Every structure is written in structure tokens, then in C-alpha cells.
């Protein structure tokens, strides 16, 4: 397979005329805030219809090189500002032209540009579905070390430890078979064996923004997009050299109760990250490395992690570009699966006391993009994700897994006219798993998709799309899916947008769910395979509206309804089974098996209110999501779903001082799996409370002292509130963190 990848890359490079250079002009300058005159950092500056682009550095500077001679349009976008197009910028060959660009601040939600909803850049106002963005600045402010931490405050998103749940789509599966599709720069990013999201391997320090699309999205993205899509977009390589680093050191506060003190030592959570990027002619490169060590507040839960990320971009010409990204993580982690009891909530069950998990995970991806004209471009993307892990107990290896997942995607976008944009493409994937838990199995799939965005009236845009997927796993019969989508956006004026959408989603069972088999796992429960699992499906309906009131208030309201069929959940029951395939006798006992257990309907509403109080000095946001997750099979509430999510945040800036606060409320989970608690067994696993967590932080910019540094102090879970997100897993109490960020 590596030979094949090499061949593909070489073919692309040679076909594009790697050595061909385009003589052109240079446009450079600064992007500043039109009201304050301050530099806008991280704005995207792109020549329309070309691949020539740059993001602004810490001084707001950009530099566009090899600009084709003649007249061009420059597009500038940044979350929190109105998108700006500067028309008729004329530059001749060899000329260097300076252009200062002033961006008009806008309410946060309306100004941004997103790429996930339609697989192309579009203004948030044009999107027919609910979408939220998390910027690099917010991630840095919160000192999020992994991506799941960054998602905890997105309205409608609920994290159950490292398992993501958008508007009630996901219950308890310990991450296996995620119903939210995570993309890394537009490519599926999950493990080949269990179909789970590996948050730690996503290079948080090099993220430009995260886009969260709520509702089924399989019509564009295929399997796993039942509940939504999270697209992680990494930073563009800036035009000038940049060295960034972050050090942080956190201290877990003493356990709130003496019963929970298991160590007399102070427990730290520390890390260092560094990233260097530069451009040399047509080549841009970024290297990033991070080291994090967490002693943890719980016994046998510590981890040590090295992560490496690199991105290379070669501009073959003004219209062609090749990007290669490499990502690697090496981690050793204690195997704390659930607590011993609530009385000993910081100690694992005895069977997990000496276990640890060692994992090596990484990806290699490429993206080739070519503008054939200012109306037509295509992209070829591919990614290999390797996932290798093993767990052992007291030095004895229990489980070993190796999985290899390849995804390739060819996409073309044709701007037939300003009011008609056609996007179409094809995708393929190959998966191979070799594990003692899952056996050795291959999987292969292919898909074609198309979407048209059509301005049917001057202020009304219709989006229609469809995707056909085919998949075959091991020796099982192949299956195919057809998923349509429809969206409508009406924008009567610049401040108002009314939207309606319909979309469908599906998820193939992961190889791990189909074939997992173990008679000795972390608990005393046997795990059995189920090759009869059916594809789970969803249909999402949504109507919503957003409006800006002046420039200081922004409101978005949505009503949604999601129907789920054949939901796959781990079912825990007493069954008669053979302890191993050749066993002559059957025994009865508790068994975990993934099964299509239920049909469900989740209805609800979501509202987001953002207010800027003293212009740039204070911005607040409130998000409330109500869901009624109904199990239609058992005519009761779905297991493991909260009914209410309420998130509030405040960010303020006074000169060089920045302060922020986040409050998170998740209502008590009303129904859990009693069989799981009793049979696993998870002692006191039914103990749970609403989640009410308040985080405070402040940072000071030392630029005033001539140092490009920012020092920060964070207190997470200020009131030391004790809660669980996941049954039998006490969440961290109060934590103090010092951070130092630098950028040169």
C-alpha cells in the first residue's frame, strides 16, 4: 500500500509540473480592525479563484506571492468580522504592491466562513443547518489539551468522558462506533477497529478552528455522520517564519473528601508544545511537537504522551497546491475503566489496578487542489490512519490490536454561476483489522455524491444533495445506502437568516462491534460477537432562524427532530453461550453484545444568544439545548441522554489583560443501563448528579513590556464540584493551571 501511495503522489507531482514556476507580482500589507486599528491575527487572505493565500501573523501582516499579473479579487475572512472582498486589485509581473485591509467587526456568529456544511467555503449565513465554530483563540484561552476538552462548551454538544454526543445522538458505548463523524481537514478521522474517535492524536495546538455541524450529514460525508459532523481545520502555514510555544503546569487540588485521598503526593498535569512554521519559495512547512504528562487525580490513570505533527505545502503554481500532513502519537496510559466504588471513587476496580494501555497512532494525509478556472476546482485527498494498541496487566499482555484505515476522496466544485454551485465527487475506503479481540478482517467501501446549491429567488437558496455508499466487511454480504439532503435558506436582509433542512445519516457497524469476542476482559462479563448487526440510520429535520440586533446582539433559535432506527448499543444480559467456539458445553452468565436495540426519536430546541457589552471589552454567550430523547421501542426516555444542556461563557479584554469564564450545566441523566451496573459490575454505578462546573481564567499579554509572551492562570472547576460524565468515573475536581504562551 505504501508503494501505491508513493506512486499516486509522484504521479500528481509530475503531472502538475512541479518545477514550473509562475512569475507574478506580490501583494502584502496588514489586516486591521476597522474600529480599533489593532492587528487582526489569523485572518485568511486569499486571491479569489486561486490557491494563493496567507493567514496573518501576530502583527496582522500577510504576504501573497506569485500573484498572476492583472486584476484580481482578494477575499479576507475571520471569525468575528464581516467577510470582505476587495475587487479589482491590479498587480503586474515583478511588482510589489502594498494593501492595508480593514475588517469590520461583526457579531461573532455572522462573520465567519465555514467549509463543512457544503464541502466548500461559505458564509455562516448561507448555511441551512445549525453550525458552531470554536476558534484557535478560544482553545488557547481555555488551555484545551485535547480536542474533546474544546468541545465541552459547544451548545448542543455533550461529552461523556471522551465520547461525543450531539443533540442526544449517542448513549453509552465507551467511544466505540461514534455517531458523530470527525474530520481532520475534511477527511474521516477514526480508528479502523472500533470506529472511535481518537481525540489525542488531533493536533490541538495547530488547529485553526473547529466546525460542528449538527444533524445527520451522511449525504455529503457517508458513514458515521448520524448525529453530526465535526471538522477540525488545521492552521494555514503563514507567509513569514513563526515560532510558537506553550508551557503549562496544572496542579490537582487535594481530594475533597479524605475517603478519596489515595496518594500523599501532589498530582500534576503538565505539558509543553512547540511549533515552527515558515515558507521558502513555494514550499511552506510546519513542525510541531508536544509532550504532556498527567499524574491524574485517580490511581492508575496517569499518562505520558508524545505527539508530533507536520504539514508541508507546496504551491506548484498559482492554481495548484499539494499538502502533506503527518501525525504521530505515542502514549502510555493507566487502565482506569471505572471506580472501585463511590466510597473509593479515585481508585479503580481491583481488576484494573495494575493494567495499562500502550498505544501508537498516526496518520499520513495528502491533499492536492487545482483551480482549472475561477469557476472550477477539484481536490484529491487521502489519509492513512494506523492504530496500534495493547493493554496489559502486571506485565501480562491481554489484548493487542492493529488497524489500518485508508480513505481517498475526489471532489470537484463548479461555480456554474453566482447562484448555482455544483459539488460532486467520489470516495473510497479500505480497512484492515488484526486483533485478538476482533480477529482479522478487511473492509472496503466506495461512494459517489453530488450537491447543487441553487439561488431560486434573489434571497432564497435551495441546496439539494445525494450520496450513494457501498460497503463490504470481511465475508459478510455487502450493503448499500442512499442518503439525500435538502436545505433552504432565506435571507430577507443582512441581519436575518431563516433556514430549514432535511438530511439522513447512517453508520456501518464497526469491525470491532461485529467481531469483538472476549471471555476475560476488564470485568467478569463475557463479550460476544454479533455479525447480524444492521446499519443504523437517522433522519434529521430542522428549522431555525438567526438575527443580529444592531451589531451587539445575536440570536439563533432552532427546532429539531431526529429519528433513529436500528441504534446499536452494547446490551448486557444473562445468556447461555459457549465460552470458546470449540467448547463442548454451554454456560450461562452475563454477556455484553452489540445489538440493534432500539428505535428512537429525539426532538428539541436550541437557542444561542451572544451579546457584546462594551464592544470589544466583554462578550457573553449563552446556549441552551432542550432534548426529549424518546426510546420508541420501550416507550420511555433513552438511556444515557441528558434532557437539558446550558452553557454560558464570558470573555473580556481590558488592555493587555484578558479574562474569561465558562459555566456548564448538564441535567442529571435520567435513565442508565441497570444491567450494565449490576452485571459488569460497576459498584455505585448508578450514582450521578447534574453537572455544574464553573471555570475561570485570566491572562496577561507581555507585549507591552516588549515580550511576545502571554502568561495565564486558570482555575478549572472553581467550586470543586464532584460529578461523573461517564458511569463510575469521577470527573476532575478543582485544578489550578499556569500557562505561558509565546509567539515569535
Amino acid at each position: 500500500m505504501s508503494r501505491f501511495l508513493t506512486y499516486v503522489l509522484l504521479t500528481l507531482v509530475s503531472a502538475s509540473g512541479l518545477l514550473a514556476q509562475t512569475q507574478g507580482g506580490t501583494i502584502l500589507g496588514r489586516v486591521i480592525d476597522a474600529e480599533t486599528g489593532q492587528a487582526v491575527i489569523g485572518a485568511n487572505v486569499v486571491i479569489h479563484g486561486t490557491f494563493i493565500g496567507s493567514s496573518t501573523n501576530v502583527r496582522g501582516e500577510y504576504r501573497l506571492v506569485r500573484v498572476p499579473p492583472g486584476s484580481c479579487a482578494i477575499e479576507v475572512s475571520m471569525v468575528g468580522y464581516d467577510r470582505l472582498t476587495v475587487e479589482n486589485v491590479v498587480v503586474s509581473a515583478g511588482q510589489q504592491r502594498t494593501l492595508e485591509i480593514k475588517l469590520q467587526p461583526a457579531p461573532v456568529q455572522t462573520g465567519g466562513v465555514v467549509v463543512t456544511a457544503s464541502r466548500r467555503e461559505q458564509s455562516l449565513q448561507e448555511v441551512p443547518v445549525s453550525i458552531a465554530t470554536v476558534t484557535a483563540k478560544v482553545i488557547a484561552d481555555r488551555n484545551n489539551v485535547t480536542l474533546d476538552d474544546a468541545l465541552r462548551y459547544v451548545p448542543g454538544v455533550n461529552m461523556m468522558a471522551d465520547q461525543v454526543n450531539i443533540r442526544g445522538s449517542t448513549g453509552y458505548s465507551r467511544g466505540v462506533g461514534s455517531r458523530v463523524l470527525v474530520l481532520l481537514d475534511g477527511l474521516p478521522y477514526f480508528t479502523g477497529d472500533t470506529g472511535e474517535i481518537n481525540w489525542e492524536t488531533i493536533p490541538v495546538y495547530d488547529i485553526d478552528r473547529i466546525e460542528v455541524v449538527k444533524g445527520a450529514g451522511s449525504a455529503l460525508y457517508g458513514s458515521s455522520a448520524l448525529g453530526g459532523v465535526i471538522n477540525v481545520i488545521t492552521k494555514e502555514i503563514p507567509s513569514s517564519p513563526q515560532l510558537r510555544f506553550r508551557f503549562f503546569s496544572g496542579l490537582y487540588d487535594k481530594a475533597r473528601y479524605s475517603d478519596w485521598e489515595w496518594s500523599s503526593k501532589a498530582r500534576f498535569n503538565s505539558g509543553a508544545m512547540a511549533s515552527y512554521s515558515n515558507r521558502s519559495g513555494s514550499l511552506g512547512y510546519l513542525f510541531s511537537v508536544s509532550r504532556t504528562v498527567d499524574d491524574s487525580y485517580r490511581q492508575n490513570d496517569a499518562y505520558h504522551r508524545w505527539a508530533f505533527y507536520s504539514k508541508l505545502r507546496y504551491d506548484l503554481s498559482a492554481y495548484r497546491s499539494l499538502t502533506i500532513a503527518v501525525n504521530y502519537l505515542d502514549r502510555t496510559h493507566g487502565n482506569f475503566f471505572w471506580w472501585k466504588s463511590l466510597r473509593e471513587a479515585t481508585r479503580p476496580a481491583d481488576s484494573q489496578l495494575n493494567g495499562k494501555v500502550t498505544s501508537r497512532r498516526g496518520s499520513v494525509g495528502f491533499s492536492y487542489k487545482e483551480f482549472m478556472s475561477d469557476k472550477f476546482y477539484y481536490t484529491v485527498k487521502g489519509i492513512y490512519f494506523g492504530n496500534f494498541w495493547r493493554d496489559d496487566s502486571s506485565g501480562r499482555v491481554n489484548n493487542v490490536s492493529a488497524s489500518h484505515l485508508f480513505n481517498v476522496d475526489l471532489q470537484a466544485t463548479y461555480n456554474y454561476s453566482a447562484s448555482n454551485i455544483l459539488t460532486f465527487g467520489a470516495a473510497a475506503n479500505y480497512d484492515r483489522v488484526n486483533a485478538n479481540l476482533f480477529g482479522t478482517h478487511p473492509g472496503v467501501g466506495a461512494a459517489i455524491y453530488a450537491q447543487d446549491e441553487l439561488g431560486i429567488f434573489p434571497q432564497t437558496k435551495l441546496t439539494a444533495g445525494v450520496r450513494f455508499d457501498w460497503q463490504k466487511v470481511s465475508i459478510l454480504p455487502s450493503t448499500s445506502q442512499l442518503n439525500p439532503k435538502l436545505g433552504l435558506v432565506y435571507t430577507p436582509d443582512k441581519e436575518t437568516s431563516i433556514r430549514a433542512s432535511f438530511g439522513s445519516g447512517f453508520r456501518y457497524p464497526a469491525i470491532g462491534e461485529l467481531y469483538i469476542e472476549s471471555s476475560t476482559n476488564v470485568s467478569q462479563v463475557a463479550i460476544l460477537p454479533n455479525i447480524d448487526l444492521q446499519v443504523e440510520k437517522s433522519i434529521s429535520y430542522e428549522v431555525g432562524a438567526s438575527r443580529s440586533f444592531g451589531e451587539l446582539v445575536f440570536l439563533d433559535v432552532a427546532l429539531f427532530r431526529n429519528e433513529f432506527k436500528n441504534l446499536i448499543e452494547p446490551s448486557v444480559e444473562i445468556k447461555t453461550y459457549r465460552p470458546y467456539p470449540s467448547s463442548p458445553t454451554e454456560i450461562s452468565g452475563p454477556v455484553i453484545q452489540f445489538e440493534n436495540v432500539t428505535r428512537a426519536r429525539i426532538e428539541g430546541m436550541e437557542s444561542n444568544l451572544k451579546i457584546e457589552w462594551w464592544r470589544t471589552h466583554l462578550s457573553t454567550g449563552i446556549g441552551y439545548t432542550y432534548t426529549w430523547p424518546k426510546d420508541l421501542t420501550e416507550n420511555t426516555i433513552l438511556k444515557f441522554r441528558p434532557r437539558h444542556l446550558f452553557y454560558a461563557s464570558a470573555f473580556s479584554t481590558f488592555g493587555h489583560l484578558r479574562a474569561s469564564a465558562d459555566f456548564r450545566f448538564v441535567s442529571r441523566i435520567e435513565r442508565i443501563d441497570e444491567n450494565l451496573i449490576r452485571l459488569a459490575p460497576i459498584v455505585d454505578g448508578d450514582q450521578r448528579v447534574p453537572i455544574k462546573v464553573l471555570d475561570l481564567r485570566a491572562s496577561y499579554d507581555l507585549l507591552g513590556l516588549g515580550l511576545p509572551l502571554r502568561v495565564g492562570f486558570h482555575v478549572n472547576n472553581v467550586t470543586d464540584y464532584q460529578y461523573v460524565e461517564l458511569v463510575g468515573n469521577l470527573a476532575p475536581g478543582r485544578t489550578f493551571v499556569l500557562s505561558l504562551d509565546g509567539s515569535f
Partner: protein
Amino acid sequence: MKLLLVLPTAFLIASCEPGLTPPPEVQPGFGGTIYFENGTWPPPDSLLNLWLFASQLYPLDSAKVFTGLFSNPPLIFLYPATDKNLPFFVDSVSYAFNLPPGSYKYVGILQRYANEFSVRSLRVVGVYGTASDPPLPIPVIVSESQFISGIDIKVNFHKPPPQPF
């Protein structure tokens, strides 16, 4: 503007509760209610003893019953005690069975109906199990400092579950 003061204060107060707290130490065991089917009680002369049993051994045979009862430490426990009985001729009785932590794979009600002291005089008349017919035993896993509630058992003397010996 008042909102700017009221909201943060409300959030602070809301999160000032302690949340989860460690429960007081408890004796390990399990408890629940035993329901006796109306009109199925046997005549008094065949009710010599009636116990709740919890066995770490399963499946059982004649040899394992006595081994389990008299080994040190025991692997089969009787409630209320070897020389005591569950009450006779009642509709239901609640119980609290304290016993060492362990995996009790077979929990049920044992009737001694004849004078001789051998397994031939014993029969299981109820089992903590699945709702299927016949029921499969559900293990009760007792951990340290844990008392499990809700281990309810139905007894129908006319329709005993499959016998282990």
C-alpha cells in the same frame, strides 16, 4: 446591566453544592424481597427448613453442595442461618443478607422437605434469574463496601426452577 452581576452569581451559587459525596461505610451483601406465590405453600410436614442461599459455585452437583457449605471459607452461604428459617406461610419477606465480597453465581431459595440430611432432601424452589422460562441464574457480584438492593426472588412451590442436583 444587572444581568451581568446576577448571572455569574447564580452560576457560582449553583455550582457551590458538593455534588457526589462518599457514602458511609456499609457491610457488604445484598437484599431485597422474596415473594411467595399465593396458594402454593406445601404442607407443614414437608417444610423442615427454608433458606435463602448464595453460591459462588455454579453449576452445582451433590458433592459441591456440601463442599461449598463446609469449606473454609465457605463458598455457599445460607440465610438467615443454618439453624434458622425464612418465615413460613407468608406472602413476602424482605431480607438483608450480609456476606463476604465475591461473585455469587447462583442465588435462590432452598427447601428441605425430608428428615434425612442429604441433597436428596433438598430442592431449589426459587432463583434470582432472568424472566425467561426456565429462568437462567443471574450472578450477584458483591464488592467491598457495597450492599446491593433489589435482589427480588419469586417462589412458586408448584413450579420450581430446574434443579441443580
